[in-house]
């Protein structure tokens, strides 16, 4: 899922302080799971902002709504008839949701309420870790299911580098060396011969090097 983290409330206040009718828009998907922008976070932020503005003797209307998703037209359409009641939207969705909302409702300024961080998994509640960089050409089949693109600091494809020590990466002694993990896993799978193969230079054109990306599926496209 997409992992996001809450923005400091001070930063949010600074962005929206001049608006009078604000809709706080949550998202029921990834940001709900990583506890940054779901219904609960919307409620807390809305309550805190209402109190902040009241305390400043400012009459600001703050409403709450959480959509199933903000990255799909059909769900974003749900606010079509009410959006005109607001002079701004504070979206707690990931950067995708914020942009999709802004694209759909041209004349309403949309502000982000979270920092979108990475594609990751929940290691334990409150700890989210990066696992994928969406490079567009998955190599997990040959690396024992461990991704050096997202988990190796240098993104090297024939590792480890000289900085790998006692299974840890040189950038941080608490960080596992991705290549050590790959070797251990390939060994456990009895596939160390995979490790012996030299991986050729990766085609980064499917990554961000090729500019903004698009997936077009003629088989499902209407």
């Amino acid at each position, binding site marked *: 899922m997409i992992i996001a983290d809450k923005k400091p409330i001070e930063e949010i206040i600074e962005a929206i302080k001049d608006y009078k009718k604000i809709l706080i828009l949550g998202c029921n998907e990834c940001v709900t799971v990583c506890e940054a922008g779901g219904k609960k976070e919307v409620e807390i932020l809305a309550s805190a902002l*209402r*109190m902040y503005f009241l305390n400043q*003797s400012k009459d600001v209307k703050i409403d709450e709504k959480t959509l199933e998703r903000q990255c799909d037209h059909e769900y974003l359409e749900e606010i079509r008839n009410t959006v005109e009641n607001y002079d701004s939207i504070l979206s707690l969705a990931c950067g995708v949701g914020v942009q999709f909302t802004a694209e759909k409702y041209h004349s309403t300024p949309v502000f982000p309420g979270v920092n979108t961080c990475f594609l990751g998994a929940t290691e334990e509640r409150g700890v989210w870790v990066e696992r994928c960089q969406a490079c567009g050409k998955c190599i997990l089949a040959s690396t024992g299911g461990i991704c050096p693109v997202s988990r190796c600091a240098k993104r090297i494809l024939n590792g480890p580098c000289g900085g790998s020590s006692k299974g840890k990466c040189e950038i941080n002694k608490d960080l596992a060396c991705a290549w050590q993990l790959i070797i251990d896993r390939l060994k456990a799978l009895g596939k160390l011969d995979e490790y012996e193969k030299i991986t050729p230079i990766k085609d980064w054109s499917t990554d961000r090097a090729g500019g903004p990306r698009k997936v077009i599926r003629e088989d499902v496209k209407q």
Partner: protein
Amino acid sequence: MRLEYPSNIKIIRIPCTGKLDIIHILRAFEKGADGVYAVGCLEGSCQFNNGNIRSRKRIEQAKKLLDTIGVGGERVAMYNLSSGEGTHFASYAKEMNEKIQKIGPNPIKLAKKRMAA
């Protein structure tokens, strides 16, 4: 025991302090409460293992948030006691009451009055 505690304290019963969420604390302040405190079991003796630890964390988060928005984090607190410690219950209630009396009324309550006038 027939112990007395300040009559201005409203008790809201929840199954475990782990049920307490930040929003419950914030809503209490939005509605005009001058202070909010949770009374949970002693740490290490939660029937649900870590309900009171969760509660403490949420109290801490609410404190920070209330400080940021100018309501004052010192208006919230967490106390722990065992179910047999009625005397502690009463003394914590008095302690909290005195603290809040000293801090004064919830600024949100005052702001609401100001805005209505």
